[in-house]
């Protein structure tokens, strides 16, 4: 047994290590359990859930770009009721903290979803997705509207005592202003970042390559932007941050922690190497051992500027 402490806290939420799987890149856990022992992971974040099931966007939903990918899934999901009935039983079998990500088009819907899910004790925290760029009837406005983000935070806060994480949009001038509002309105932590708005066109047909026209850019291409956003929040606002964006290996995890992240989420990498997150936990432990890091949480915001 090693004596490295990999555990981290995100406000009230305690995780056995900082490796979380990001919303929309792990489904509801089933498929990825064939590659990783879920019980080893820090946490799993569900695909964004909405009040009613959503069919999502017609194809084409994804396109590869240099060191990145655009997606416009359109929040396809089973809805909270089916989730509780059909997906929770599988997840109950595991001892991995489950974070429920919620998407909605109105403040009321955010509140309603949270209320319905709150009594399910398998769910250990909520992550509110105010920042999905891929739905036409809401999503983006929320993420870019500081008052709306504040309102959603306070209203959802009122209906749950579980840790409340707000997932921020990077497509704004100053992300730290949004993090400040989240803190002020009672949110426990912020996730940064969701995808960047991007597009790609077919030069033969002159049509967008993805049905939704714009998609969300993820993957290693966005890592420098994500790091800068995490650093901006870390320097300006005293709130726990979950770092997300382009993580491909354990070194990227350390880099995110140094600039301010308490934990991280792995997204696009799950599609390429679904065994990587579990492997990374071991690699982080080795790193800590050989660098005299006793508690990995000491790395958070350890930047020297």
């Amino acid at each position, binding site marked *: 047994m090693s004596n490295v402490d990999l555990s981290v806290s995100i406000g009230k939420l305690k995780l056995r290590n900082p490796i979380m799987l990001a919303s929309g890149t792990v489904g509801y856990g089933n498929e990825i359990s064939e590659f990783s022992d879920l019980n080893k992971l820090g946490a799993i974040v569900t695909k964004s859930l909405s009040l009613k099931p959503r069919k999502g966007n017609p194809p084409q*939903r*994804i396109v590869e770009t240099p*060191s990145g*990918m655009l997606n416009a899934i359109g929040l396809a999901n089973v809805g909270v009721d089916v989730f509780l009935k059909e997906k929770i039983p599988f997840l109950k079998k595991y001892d991995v903290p489950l974070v429920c990500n919620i998407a909605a088009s109105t403040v009321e819907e955010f509140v309603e979803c949270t209320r319905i899910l709150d009594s399910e004790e398998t769910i250990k925290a909520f992550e509110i997705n105010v920042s999905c760029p891929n739905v036409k009837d809401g999503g983006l406005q929320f993420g870019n509207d500081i008052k709306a983000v504040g309102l959603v935070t306070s209203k959802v806060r009122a209906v749950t005592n579980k840790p409340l994480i707000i997932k921020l949009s990077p497509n704004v001038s100053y992300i730290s202003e949004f993090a400040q509002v989240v803190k002020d309105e009672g949110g426990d932590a912020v996730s940064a970042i969701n995808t960047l708005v991007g597009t790609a066109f077919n030069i033969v047909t002159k049509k967008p390559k993805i049905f939704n026209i714009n998609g969300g850019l993820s993957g290693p291409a966005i890592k420098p932007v994500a790091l800068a956003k995490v650093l901006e929040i870390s320097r300006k606002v005293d709130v726990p941050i979950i770092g997300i964006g382009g993580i491909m290996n354990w070194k990227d995890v350390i880099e995110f922690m140094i600039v301010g992240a308490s934990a991280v989420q792995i997204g696009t990498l799950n599609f390429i*190497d679904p065994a990587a997150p579990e492997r990374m936990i071991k690699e982080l432990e080795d790193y800590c051992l050989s660098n005299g890091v006793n508690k990995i949480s000491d790395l958070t915001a350890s930047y020297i500027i």
Partner: protein
Amino acid sequence: MLIVNSPVVETIQVHENIYIQKILSPEIARDIRPGQFLNIRVSETTNPLLRRPFSICDVDGDNIFIMFNVMGEGTKILACKQSGSFVDILGPLGNGFNLEDDYETAVFVAGGMGSAPFPYLTRKVKDSKKIISFVGGRSKNDLITYSLMNVHTSTDDGSEGFNGNIVQLLEKNLDKLTAEKIKIFGCGPNAMLKSLKDFCLKYDFNCEISTESAMACGFGICQGCPIESAANPDRYLLVCKDGPVFNSKDVVL
């Protein structure tokens, strides 16, 4: 589902732009069924970033075969992998063809690179069923008949075989098809699959088609590969997980 790093045995150029790659992968060879596919990472760098999906083309002992067209960066890198290089394989993926149905003759209908899954399917059914293969392409050079039996061809430009598309050729051979209990297996571009589906509806043939889609993961976690379901207009099916093989009646193309 496995992730294995397997050595390339050889890469053979079979047409101007088409390659067959033989890979030593006992674990995959043991499990995979015709119609399933593999998601292959061609480079350790981040460009290309995502895996590339390829149908299983054939299996021989511990070796597996894929057949591919050089389309872009990914397939270009793959084509350059010679004996001793490694490919990182995730698979077997998807559901494969149903070989248990009751029929006497298997009719394969392939458009362009759609020939890829049929060598393996041929190997699996040839001892118990009759096989007729219909292979179409834009032109002579697009006809891929590697390892197929009893082949009829069509080209859009008439440079070889029947002058027209492959479904027109099927229609012309209708008498051969109605003589006995048959099952149709189709693979090719979605437009071709759509007219094959219509043809099968019209003449009431049992038909399975292998569909294509852009994919990120290949195993059901990204929701990137939707296909319209005939049964339930409120939900998409996923090509990678619910397919890539569907009964042609079950999907809207």
